[in-house]
């Protein structure tokens, strides 16, 4: 019913507008075309100026309205660089934006038709054209220079001490794999994937390196202050690991692993405090269209203190054990790591953290 009502109102509105428009045509015939033209021209000239003034106020107002909702402090070192680059770009383009828009609408208003005004015959001026070729070129050189400087820093090789985590996208979720104590990922082959047997990545058990690999869907645990290198895979279609708080992003392409690295600056707990939001989580969003569940393909990153990380890791069962439950009764060497090695690992992590 309300739909019908809305359609009726719309139609009525249309008819009213149309009748007014038609009447205005008759009025213009009565008034004389020239007079109508001059009136319309004045109105539109004024509106152009008003649009510019209100528009610039609107831009400022929009910024005030939203600046608290975007770009909280970047939570990674790369994120800081990206934010710096962003502010440089906003400054340069902002100046150009304001100047050119003001000129456009001001000229439109100022040089609107006036009886007897002669337009200035001005077909070209090489000097002017050179100036506005060179100035943008210089501005862009600055932007390219800064941009590439940061780009190579961000996409350069990960530091050697970086933790390595593998993340694999699938319709519609994320699988995380840790290399385990040996720090080596076991081999895998996609045709071995068997979800019934809990081998969701297709790990090859013949490769002993796979036996201590930890595979989980729960969350990606990262150590605060320690660089992490992600090896990114996809099991089916193209996905994308989007980490808005870290300002990082990389596609997950089936058959072609990609990588990214960064250093998280704040733990999840610290971010809860910083943002004042007790429900805060670092979320992984899929940023590449991947099917009907794309909008819900969420992962969680837990950034924790080194000790908490070790504790969490120690509690994880390896995928090998999960897939072969009969092994659990036996003394499973790869799983229950001896206490002393855990301590060494912890020392390693805190050690690299402090430098």
């Amino acid at each position, binding site marked *: 019913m309300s739909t019908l009502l809305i359609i009726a109102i*719309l139609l009525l509105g249309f008819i009213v*507008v*149309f009748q007014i*428009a038609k009447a*205005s*045509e008759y009025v213009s015939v009565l008034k004389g075309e020239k007079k109508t033209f001059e009136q319309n*021209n004045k109105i*539109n000239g004024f509106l*152009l100026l008003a*649009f510019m003034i209100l528009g610039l106020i609107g831009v400022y107002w929009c910024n005030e309205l*939203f600046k608290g*909702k*975007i*770009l909280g402090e970047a939570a990674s070192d790369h994120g800081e660089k*990206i934010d710096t680059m*962003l502010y440089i*770009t906003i400054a340069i383009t902002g100046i150009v934006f304001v100047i*050119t828009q003001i000129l456009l*609408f001001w*000229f*439109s208003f100022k*040089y609107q*038709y006036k009886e007897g005004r002669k337009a*200035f*015959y001005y*077909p*070209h001026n090489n000097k002017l054209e050179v100036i*506005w070729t060179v100035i*943008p*070129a210089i501005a*862009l050189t600055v932007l390219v220079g800064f941009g*590439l400087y940061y*780009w190579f820093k*961000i*996409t350069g090789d990960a530091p050697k001490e970086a933790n390595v985590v593998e993340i694999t996208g*699938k*319709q519609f979720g994320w699988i995380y794999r840790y290399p385990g104590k040996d720090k080596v990922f076991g081999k895998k082959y996609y*045709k071995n994937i068997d979800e019934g047997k809990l081998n969701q990545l297709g790990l090859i058990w013949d490769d002993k390196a796979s036996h201590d690999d930890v595979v989980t869907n729960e969350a990606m645990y990262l150590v605060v202050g320690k660089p992490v290198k992600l090896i*990114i895979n996809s099991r*089916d*279609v*193209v996905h994308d690991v*989007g980490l*808005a708080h870290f*300002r990082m*992003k990389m596609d997950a*392409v089936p*058959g072609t692993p*990609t990588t990214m690295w960064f250093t998280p600056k704040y733990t999840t707990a610290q971010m809860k405090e910083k943002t004042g939001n007790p429900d805060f*989580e670092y*979320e992984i*969003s899929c940023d*590449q*269209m*991947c099917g*009907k569940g*794309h*909008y*819900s393909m*969420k992962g969680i990153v837990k950034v924790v203190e080194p000790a908490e990380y070790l504790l969490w890791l120690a509690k994880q069962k390896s995928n090998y054990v999960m897939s072969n439950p009969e092994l659990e009764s036996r003394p499973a060497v790869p799983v229950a790591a001896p206490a002393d090695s855990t301590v060494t690992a912890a020392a390693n992590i805190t050690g690299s953290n402090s430098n």
Partner: protein
Amino acid sequence: MSQEVNLNDQVGAMTTHEVHHDEHHGHHHKETFITKYVFSQDHKMIAKQFLITGIIWAIIGGLFSVMFRLQLGFPNETFPFLENILGKWAAGGKIQPEFYYALTTMHGTVLVFFVLTAGLSGTFSNFLIPLQVGARDMASPFMNMLSYWFFFVASIIMISSLFVQTGPASGGWTVYPPLSALGDASEGSKIGMDLWLIAMALFVVNSLLGSLNYISTILNMRTKGMSMTRMPLTIWALFFTAVLGVLSFPVLLSGFILLLFDRHAGTSFYLSDIFLASTQKALPNEGGSAILYQHLFWFLGHPEVYIIILPTMGLVSDVMSANARKPIFGYMAMVGSMFAIAVLAFLVWAHHMFVTGLNPFLGAFFVLLTLLIAVPSAIKVFNWLTTLWRGNLRFTPGMLFSIGFVSLFISGGLTGIFLGNSTLDIHLHDTYFVIAHFHIVMGVSAFFGMFAGLYHWFPKMYGRYMNNTLAYIHFWITLVGAYLIFWPMHYQGLAGVPRRYLDFSGWESFNQFDGLNRFISIVTIMVFAVQLLFVFNFFYSIFKGRRVTTQNPWGATSLEWTTPINPGHGNWEGEIPEVHRWAYDYGKDGRDFIPQTEPISANESPESKH
């Protein structure tokens, strides 16, 4: 002369009576309804066919956006009327995710290809090239007709994909494989995807037939005296557009054919290492590269955005110059910058792929080349500004849309500097920032350029004017609405809000924009309603608009205004006029304008060596 031609005012109306024939040129055959309105070989009629088909597509494509904006703005409400229209796709009055993605995919495909490529280039290339270079018709009127009918068939097939049981293509307008290659990965990748690919293949044929015709007409069929540097900028723009199309569309076609092979012939061009959860099966394909498709796609996809924007740059230049009563500033720089844009268009495609795992070193070159495009773009903007400077501006609807175009082109162009910079693209890629950027710079701007052209050349097309009051309402609401819709999206993008999400309620990071999303949706609906007002004005004015009574209503210099008010097939009665000067002698030597056909007199000031 003009009184004589007034007798033939009926041409624009849909009557079957025989058109006026002119004894002086060779079109003596009888025209029937079929040859005149359906299988017409007259470039003007073909232009109108493209235009009206484009308008129908634009309404459909716009309606899609209204539907998905309903979901985005009001994710918790139900709209029972949607179920009445869409059936199972909106079960319970809520748009289902599959259909949401089908809507966005079709919105993109329709607007980018069917409206802003065929509807725009098809209309203005066909209409203006022969009229402005001084030719009786296209180099091959028959090929021209075929071009439209390939477009028509492509349209029918694309439309039909909306009605198949598994729905139309839904992998995004870029249809990246493997998603688009595997029916088991998505409903939309079943028969809907095949129809999409077939329609697009036919569309490519349409584009090639058209573009080859445009190029050969411009190169070979200019009238006496019409040297390349005397052509209006519209023609230069349409020329570069056609060249871009000829060089890039075949690459897209090759990408589509490989995709069809992967879908049906068991090849592995794009497929490798895939295990589908829906079937719990690993596919046999190994060794393919999903990224290969993206290279092939964007090798067209990037030039495509210039295929969309270049024609409007040309139209706007001419409309602006005529209504500023002043020559376009820096004609050669305008041509040069369009040439630069056309060349660079082929060297920047991988800036869509900075985060695909592309080698960062290679990425650096694409950053450099991409940001380089800002230089010719800046030249164009400054030249337009200088064209307005010290003019005597008449705010006709065409002129207002031209000014709006420049404003939007500045706004959207500047955000391109963000996205072309790979460092920023890491954060902004595939967020609302991208949506805001390309909608402003090639969506809305291109529409503004197209509206400028339509309002300006409507009198030439139909011998009548459109209603001014409706046009002004159309302009102001569209301009304000466009900024209200897309400006705030930049902020969503900076917050990292991803594209192609139909519901943010499950996200802690992206759920802070509920109010904004609702606001944008409401404005979208209003702007869409105003476009319907334009459509109404368009069709009403074809039949009932105020009649054009003078041959050259805008006081313009270019050749199309030397034809009769309602030109027949062949355009000019008698000889095609000879051209003696460039198209921009406005305000020269104290004269309001000097048509291109007027010989240069002995005491004229020397600037116009063009």
